[in-house]
């Protein structure tokens, strides 16, 4: 049975996952199937098959939420939801939206709830998780943070993704 993706209905694919959970592999594979993952628009190709414009906007949202909360750590979901970026979110979706399109930026694991109300049509979430032992091993190898901080980052991302899934699936 041939798996067809380019049927008559437009589709949107959003990839979520903490860094190091194979999100780049999935994004690359989608791009190779002709899905526009926004990897080449405006900025040249990115290293991890991310959409640089979504990445920049997500950074802006997270920084604003940190400022609101008065923290240097990852901000809470409440703070992320409280900062006003509606117009910028609508604009970026309008700019990139195509028949078969999507995007990947690990920061969306924290911010996607803000985007959901603006994503119309047939939307798919691809959520990637990895065994904590191996993910933390990778974080400890590459990053200049304590084990406790790494675990905190992993847990914050995973909890946020679960919360996004619950809202998306209306559970």
């Amino acid at each position, binding site marked *: 049975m041939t798996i067809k993706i380019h049927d008559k209905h437009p589709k949107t*694919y959003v990839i979520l996952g903490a860094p190091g959970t194979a999100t780049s592999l999935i994004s690359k594979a989608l791009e190779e199937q002709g899905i526009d993952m926004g990897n080449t628009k405006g900025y040249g190709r990115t290293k991890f098959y991310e959409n640089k414009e979504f990445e920049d906007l997500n950074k802006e949202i997270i920084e604003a939420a940190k400022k609101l909360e008065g923290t240097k750590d990852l901000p809470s979901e409440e703070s992320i939801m409280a900062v006003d970026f509606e117009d910028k979110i609508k604009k970026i979706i309008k700019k990139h939206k195509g028949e078969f399109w999507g995007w990947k930026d690990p920061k969306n694991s924290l911010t996607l709830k803000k985007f959901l109300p603006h994503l119309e049509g047939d939307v798919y979430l691809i959520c990637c998780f990895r065994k904590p032992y191996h993910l933390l091993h990778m974080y400890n190898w590459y990053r200049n943070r304590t084990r406790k901080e790494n675990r905190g980052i992993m847990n914050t991302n995973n909890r946020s993704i679960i919360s996004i899934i619950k809202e998306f699936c209306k559970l």
Partner: protein
Amino acid sequence: MGIKMNSKDNKIYVILGAPHTASSFIAKLLSENGVDMGRFGYVSGDPYYYEDIDFKDMNKKILSEAGGNLRYPPKKEDIDKVELDEEIKKLIDKKESKFWGWKDPRTTLTIEKYLPHLEEDVYLVCLFRKPKRIIDSYRGKSGFRRDFTKEVLDKYNSSILEAVRKFCEL
């Protein structure tokens, strides 16, 4: 930068998703990117939904022993009670590829039976789609009940989330 499947560690990719969430499509992508996604059945020369026959059979057995099937998911506590650990371990031990994985929608309900036996670098790729789209998609298929409801879909999705919480040690 190319994303290379050249890690020195073995990797296992398990695809979880209710039917009609593009799980076959994602299985196909992984298969084409060097992940051994198992032994497929074929229809007209093409892999049948990229489902691994061996895991599909095992899942059917688990669900049947728990008193249900894909369309009528059994209760989680009944799945928990099924004792097929030895057979599951044997099935996993048979996999010899460095990068392997599998897809069968029933795994959405049975994944917790497998997790204790997956000792390597495991990835869960979990797929979700807007509920209305899935239900509409089911209604277009004559083989499925027209009354496939959000209630059944919620069972699949809740099962994934419960497994993810445990897997991620949350």
